[in-house]
């Protein structure tokens, strides 16, 4: 009985403090697991304060036209070798100058990326990151004023 009351009070207080810190910044590591578009699909993401925008490794990218609009269909593959198919309208096509001087065309789409209890609609470049360890790179446009990055830590967010 006493224990039940204690747990109840604990829940109340943690709920209150949870509200109080909602406007505070959340410290995350340089690697985190995120989820995509309300799904349970998990991706390991590298949190990169050196990048303006976010980019994702897109496989089998098919560009098509739907009611006069440009769309793309592509596939994700995560570290657990699970595939996830996404179909989205193209928001923008950018030309990126690579470090070797070549120009690459990239589609930009909008994805809902969830990190713990915070979810953000963020513009993501579709790229070939197949030679990289992490399929998703999260840049400053996602981090905004909500997240602080501690580069000594990884996978701090659990959900």
């Amino acid at each position: 009985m006493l224990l039940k009351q204690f747990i109840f009070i604990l829940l109340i207080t943690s709920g209150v403090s949870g509200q109080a810190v909602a406007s505070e910044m959340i410290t995350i590591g340089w690697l985190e697991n995120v989820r995509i578009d309300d799904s349970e699909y998990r991706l390991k993401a590298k949190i990169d304060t050196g990048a303006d925008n976010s980019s994702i490794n897109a496989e089998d990218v098919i560009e098509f036209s739907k009611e006069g609009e440009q769309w793309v269909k592509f596939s994700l593959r995560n570290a657990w070798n699970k595939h996830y198919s996404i179909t989205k309208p193209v928001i923008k096509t950018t030309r990126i100058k690579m470090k070797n001087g070549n120009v690459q065309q990239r589609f930009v789409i909008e994805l809902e990326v969830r990190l713990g209890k915070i979810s953000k609609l963020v513009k993501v470049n579709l790229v070939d990151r197949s030679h990289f360890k992490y399929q998703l790179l999260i840049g400053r446009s996602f981090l905004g004023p909500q997240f602080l990055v501690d580069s000594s830590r990884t996978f701090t967010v659990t959900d």
Partner: protein
Amino acid sequence: MTKNRMPDKAIIGWREWVSFPDLGIDKIKAKVDTGARTSALHAFNIEEFNVNGKHMVRFKIHPLQKDNDFIVICEAAVIDVREVTDSGGHCEKRFVIETFITIGNDTFSIEATLTDRDTMKFRMLLGRTALENNFIVDSSKSYVLSKI
């Protein structure tokens, strides 16, 4: 989810002015890059030499982004020669030096690779190894600790 920030770590922005007292660089703009493990300096005319059997390098740096006429000639001990993969997946052999860096009120030793890639917009990248003991990054801000 961690909601408390480490009290002993200072917050820095994604760009900061830093200095290298032993290299004679009073100020250079650094990009604070949690996506990179190792720090990198954009150096050119890199030459190896020996002092009493100690492996050294001499190199030049343009510390100011838009001023290519201003050159600082630096010397540092080589602590390693490493294969480094850049974000384009290219592998390159680079010298690693150890030198002191000053950020805000802190001066500490860091390792940095020397790269002569001309396309680097920032002349200095501050990677995770240099950050991890001292700072956490607020990527919505710039020049938080810089007093220059």
